[in-house]
């Protein structure tokens, strides 16, 4: 029913979001629009580093399953999901999601949905380093609210 291509990657090393997005966009000239979300480690919060830990047997399969759900729900030409793991510094990209679609509204909704579910359901555990000390980040109430928008 849905021939959209998905490109889902879990990377342990830095990536170049502009290059990834340019390649993605160029590959789907029949899509009228591409919506992307880039999340990066925020500078200026006193956070010296961020670490994302994953559990190999679950994390990537779950990301792929989410991509399938997104493709089934919206009429896309293609979906790109790239997520980092490991230690990152302020300004470094964490996640890039891009949805290419014939219609703008589908692309926005698909990228928005993918981000909400990636953030709240993905098998990533996050800790931050501030003043030299690492601290685990707990789940946020906001994420449950974000998810509830789609139900």
């Amino acid at each position, binding site marked *: 029913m849905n021939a959209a291509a998905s490109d889902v990657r879990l990377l342990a090393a830095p990536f170049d979001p502009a290059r990834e997005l340019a390649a993605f966009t160029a590959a789907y000239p029949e899509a009228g629009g591409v919506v992307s979300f880039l999340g990066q480690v925020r500078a200026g919060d006193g956070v010296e580093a961020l670490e994302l830990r994953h559990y190999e047997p*679950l994390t990537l399969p779950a990301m792929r399953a989410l991509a399938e759900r997104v493709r089934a729900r919206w009429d896309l030409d293609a979906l790109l999901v790239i997520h980092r793991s490991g230690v990152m510094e302020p300004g470094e990209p964490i996640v890039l999601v891009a949805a290419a679609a014939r219609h703008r509204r589908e692309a926005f909704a698909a990228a928005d949905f993918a981000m909400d579910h990636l953030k709240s359901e993905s098998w*990533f555990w996050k800790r931050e380093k501030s003043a030299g000390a690492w601290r685990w980040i*707990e789940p946020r109430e906001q994420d449950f609210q974000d998810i509830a928008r789609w139900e």
Partner: protein
Amino acid sequence: MGIKLVFLGRIEDVAGAGELTVPFAASIEAVLADLEPELARALREPRVKLAVNGILLRDTDAPVLRHGDEIAFLPPVSGG
């Protein structure tokens, strides 16, 4: 071979390591009973999910363990 335990998120801090191999026991309850009480308590928290060999358990599952099995303890994932 024993049983390999994998600790994610803040459970890693409680355990003092990301992984631990313990002597074989046939059930998850038996594995937990042999651990230090503080760690066992953290692993039994209702919000901690379990996976055996990469397969997520439902709440009602009580699998019979085999030598070399890997049990992962998964606290709630971090937010946005």
